[in-house]
């Protein structure tokens, strides 16, 4: 086995582990990066229906090396696997609830029959523990959409219950105008992991009681705080029922304060890389499945805004920063016009943090995979004359006879923060 193959094998077998970005241009980097991208959900054809299966279970998630927390996950991944269909496809999704909590699935941005919209007590009853629900709809409209749980939404969405849903148009006007071969889906979210833990524990404990009562046939509107009408609710209040939002009952006034910010479930330094080549177009589908706005800024480029909430824009326009509000999706096209490694991050830098510490969060990089290795060498391209004697000379290469003394060489080595190579992982700037 060649050394390079061995490295590749190692990278695959340790998928999910931190990849050292010093080898960002190596082919192992792209193999490892697949673990950071959304995974397609396979389907089976049954007549004219595309049949998918989604289940939900409790999962231990590690957004960055060393930090783990309990959360919910569709099919064991955060975000849930990507459902990708064509416009007009008949879609059937069998949803199995393997948790002791209630859930539904809402198809965000999709024009589904209203009884398939996944809003508990409005369009359906919740999917109870160990129950299933089969959603059926025709895939429309085209574009970038997502699905998420609509039960206990404040907690369940930030607890990992979301995934991308892409409806492709075979005659996609965006692809016609900006031909591309590669595309990326980036699902943004924000999480108060302490809130998630406390709420999940509280809900699981309450559900143990409620499931017991339900099995015994002792369901009452007051026990579940679910009423058939306002009159019934008011009558219950007159009989002594106290709504949970009142401060003399259970109300928890502590709204979540997000402390982790993720892209495809991962925080820097585990966030995905966006690989591109010079003169290549890539399409990036941006989805905000969280409750915070992310002002996403790409260094060194302007990109084309080509779709808003999945709707193709008749007149795409250029910008370099986009405010991705909660529930929004945008599609952008990046043209490979400026070779390098460029960060793409939230310019509300409070969200480029992990548990309050910068850098972290939704910091990721656009990487030109055809970037010459030479350009990664710090001392050849640094603007610091201490490191590079040719600094400020318009990119002139180093000339003979300009070697530094050995003492300066030693100091230079100390200033490199390790190898003479970029990029590096910096966790405490």
């Amino acid at each position, binding site marked *: 086995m060649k050394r390079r193959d061995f490295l590749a094998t190692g990278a695959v077998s340790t998928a999910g582990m931190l990849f050292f970005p010093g080898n960002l241009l190596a082919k192992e980097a792209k193999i490892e990066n697949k673990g950071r991208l959304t995974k397609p959900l396979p389907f089976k054809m049954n007549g004219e229906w595309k049949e998918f299966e989604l289940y939900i279970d409790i999962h231990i998630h590690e957004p960055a090396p060393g930090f783990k927390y309990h959360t919910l996950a569709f099919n064991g991944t955060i975000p849930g696997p990507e459902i990708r269909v064509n416009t007009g496809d008949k879609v059937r999704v069998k949803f199995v609830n393997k948790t002791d909590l209630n859930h539904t699935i809402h198809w965000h941005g999709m024009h589904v029959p209203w009884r398939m919209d996944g809003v508990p007590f409005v369009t359906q009853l919740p999917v109870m523990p160990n129950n299933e629900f089969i959603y059926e709809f025709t895939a429309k409209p085209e574009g970038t959409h997502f699905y998420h749980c609509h039960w206990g939404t404040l907690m369940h969405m930030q607890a990992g219950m979301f995934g991308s849903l892409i409806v492709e148009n075979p005659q996609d006007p965006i692809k016609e105008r900006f031909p591309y071969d590669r595309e990326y889906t980036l699902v943004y979210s924000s999480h108060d992991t302490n809130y998630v*833990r406390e709420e999940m*524990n509280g809900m699981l*404990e309450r559900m143990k009681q409620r499931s*017991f*009562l339900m099995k*015994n046939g002792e369901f009452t509107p007051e*026990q579940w705080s679910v009423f058939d009408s306002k009159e019934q609710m008011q009558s219950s209040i007159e009989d002594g029922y106290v709504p949970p939002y009142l401060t003399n009952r*259970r109300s928890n006034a502590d709204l979540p304060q997000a402390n982790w910010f993720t892209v495809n479930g991962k925080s820097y330094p585990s966030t995905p890389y966006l690989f591109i080549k010079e003169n290549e177009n890539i399409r990036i589908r941006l989805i905000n499945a969280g409750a915070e706005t992310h002002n996403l800024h790409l260094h060194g480029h302007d990109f084309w805004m080509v779709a808003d909430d999945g709707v193709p824009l008749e007149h795409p326009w250029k910008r370099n920063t986009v405010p991705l509000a909660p529930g929004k999706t945008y599609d952008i096209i990046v043209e490979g016009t400026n070779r390098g490694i460029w960060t793409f991050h939230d310019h509300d830098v409070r969200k480029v943090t992990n548990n309050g510490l910068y850098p972290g969060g939704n910091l990721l990089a656009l990487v030109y995979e055809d970037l010459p290795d030479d350009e990664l060498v710090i001392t050849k391209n640094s603007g610091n004359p201490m490191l590079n004697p040719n600094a400020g000379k318009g990119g002139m290469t180093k000339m003979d006879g300009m070697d530094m003394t050995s003492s300066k060489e030693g100091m230079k080595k100390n200033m490199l923060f390790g190898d003479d190579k970029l990029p590096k992982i910096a966790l405490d700037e």
Partner: protein
Amino acid sequence: MKKILIILFVSIHGIVVSQITPEFQIGAKGVFSGNFNNNSDESNAVADFSDTQLLLSLRQKLYNNWRAQFVLGLQFPDANSNLGQVFYNNIFIRLEDEKNVLKVGRTLAQTILNQFPTLRDDDAQRFVYSLNPFSNGVNTERDQYANVLEYARIIKKKLTVSIHGENFYDNLNPNDFRLNSLGLSIVYRVPESQKWNRNILQEIGVSYNNFFTKSPYTTDDFEASTKNLIFSTTLNLIPHPINFVDFKFQAIHNFGWSEINFLGSYFDYTRAKSTSLFGMIRYMKRKQERPNYQISVGFGYKNMPSLDIISDQYMLITNAFYRIGENFDVGLQYRYLTNNGYTSIFFGRYEHRAQIALVYSFNKIFNKQFGDRYDILNLEHNYIR
């Protein structure tokens, strides 16, 4: 000395710059009652706020996935307890990981394995605690709390095996802080969060305590020690979320000194052979997932077979609590005690006590950063270090 202080200050100052704010827990219990006593020797009425206490805990993760907790608690004891206005009942530090717990400092000793639904923790003191044989019995805190050194191993999340040494307060040698007790406990306990998952057995355990007493009857140290064995269980009779009934029971056998055949002092009472049985049945009505009211009835019996006259004790206790709001309860409690033989000399022949009480209790962790070992997530979905 000055140099040491300067170095300490510099070190602490350095730490302050980057210190981690811990989780902090505040616990408070206020028990305020009017007691109406009708005893064999006198009748009286007392305004009582004993057992009122405050607890502060600071807890954080260590570098190696262990957790450390510092606890400081104070209690307002009985006025005639000789403990002063305030008794510091909890001053300890605790280190733990998933399977190990180490505790050092003053806290509850393992002289009781159960928690009975009485108004105050010491309402059934003589029946439910393995009594401190070094105490003169003036207060109950010296039976409940000790300076402890305890190691516990947690097996399969619900079984705790602990070995513990204690320094119980010694009225005859108050400045002796050496360990004067050694014990071993094994307890299986279903955590509160899983109560509704409910096998009938909520809790069962045994504890063995060996107090290093000196005996005038023997020079053999083991023979001279006072040995107590506790058995305890809690059964969920009706583990119903709305109409909940449980039964708690504890038995204590004091192997004692068979040479004691009369009670010449309180020390004889705690060192003589005895068997105590105490059980309490509780009905709790829960409304809207919160306790609404609770009614309990308990009965205790203690006999001392080595005494030359029958000297047994009986207790009947019943109470009712009604929740008037989150954290606030009003309560009524009635307790009847009867003492026969030598025990009547110390405690009177009988005692009726009726109490009407207001109770406030609060317990909350602020700045939460990690889960507790008894969270459902950690119990049922793998423990996160």
